[in-house]
């Protein structure tokens, strides 16, 4: 049975699209059929982060409005044949998304794929609401920072009340993905601790992605970090998160700062 996953956050710029690409690629590497769907109509970026920006012909809105068939709009990833991208429209606005149209597209995707990963736009309006509506599982992407935590709390409330599952009296399975975690700032006591965020949001932890240049490098060249640099700490953190998503039990490792004795003595941090 296909699973619909929404990657959401409320706040913008916390790493939804990067995480969708990294998780989508890691899921596909395990052999499952995966599609990543960009719901950010008017501000599409998943195609760019996945390196497929020059291969977009038709998009989600074309499919919803009947101007293209679903298979015409799906872009197959060049590196992983069981990974596809359904891009958002860049020219239309969010009003072109109808709830009936979205329902039909999701139903069709569920027949073709094992995982349907929906990359939500920021905010709490219509776009994010439609992106989360059909979700079985939600990945709430949060930075250890006050405004991100507050917005995540709001999104969790919406997942519990406005989704199709909530309306049927069922629950959406919610997971916290803590991104841009900076061990040096955590060690100094200047960043919310993992347990603080968990206590406040009270949903289970899917993974902690350390702040890393590798994440930016990956999006610069249009390759998900899990494919571009699979041995690096952020890629490993995403791979572990995917294993947990698939139901495996993997111990959570809180990223630690690596400092020498001299650095420690003078309070210097690693570059």
């Amino acid at each position: 049975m296909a699973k619909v996953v929404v990657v959401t956050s409320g706040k913008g710029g916390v790493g939804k699209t990067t995480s969708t690409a990294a998780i989508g690629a890691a899921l596909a590497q395990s052999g499952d059929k995966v599609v990543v769907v960009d719901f950010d109509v008017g501000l599409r970026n998943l195609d760019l982060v996945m390196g497929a920006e020059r291969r977009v012909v038709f998009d989600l809105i074309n499919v919803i409005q009947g101007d293209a068939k679903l298979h015409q709009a799906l872009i197959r990833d060049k590196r992983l044949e069981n990974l596809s991208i359904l891009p958002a429209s860049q020219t239309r606005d969010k009003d072109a998304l109808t709830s009936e149209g979205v329902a039909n597209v999701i139903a069709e995707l569920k027949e073709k794929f094992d995982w349907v990963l929906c990359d939500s736009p920021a905010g709490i309006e219509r776009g994010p609401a439609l992106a989360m509506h059909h979700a079985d599982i939600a990945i709430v992407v949060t930075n250890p920072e006050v405004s991100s935590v507050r917005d995540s709390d709001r999104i969790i409330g919406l997942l519990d009340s406005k989704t199709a599952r909530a309306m049927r009296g069922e629950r959406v399975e919610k997971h916290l993905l803590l991104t841009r975690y900076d061990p040096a700032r955590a060690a100094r006591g200047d960043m919310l601790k993992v347990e603080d965020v968990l206590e406040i949001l009270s949903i289970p932890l899917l993974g902690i992605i350390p702040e890393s240049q590798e994440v930016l490098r990956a999006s610069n060249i249009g390759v998900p970090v899990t494919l571009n640099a699979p041995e690096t700490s952020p890629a490993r953190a995403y791979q572990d998160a995917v294993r947990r998503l698939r139901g495996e039990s993997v111990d959570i490792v809180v990223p630690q700062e690596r400092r020498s004795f001299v650095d420690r003595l003078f309070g210097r941090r690693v570059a």
Partner: protein
Amino acid sequence: MSIFHFFRKKPSANIARERLQILLAHERSVFGKSDLVARLQEEILAVIRRHMEVDPDKVQVKLDRGDHVSTLEIDIEVPLAAAQKVA
């Protein structure tokens, strides 16, 4: 911990946590209304709309559960034009 530790500013993460806990306790009570209250609000609004046009934001339903007495508070602001039509 470095030898310069004592000259540093106080860590700010604890302040962040406390501010969030206070803020979210409040916000959850505002946004996280129970299903019963949400449904009541919707149905009360539908009944009133059969007779007059009211702004959905001007219908407030509040449920306070006390140990001995619970109160249901319904506050509806009726626009002047609609009120005159009914009267």
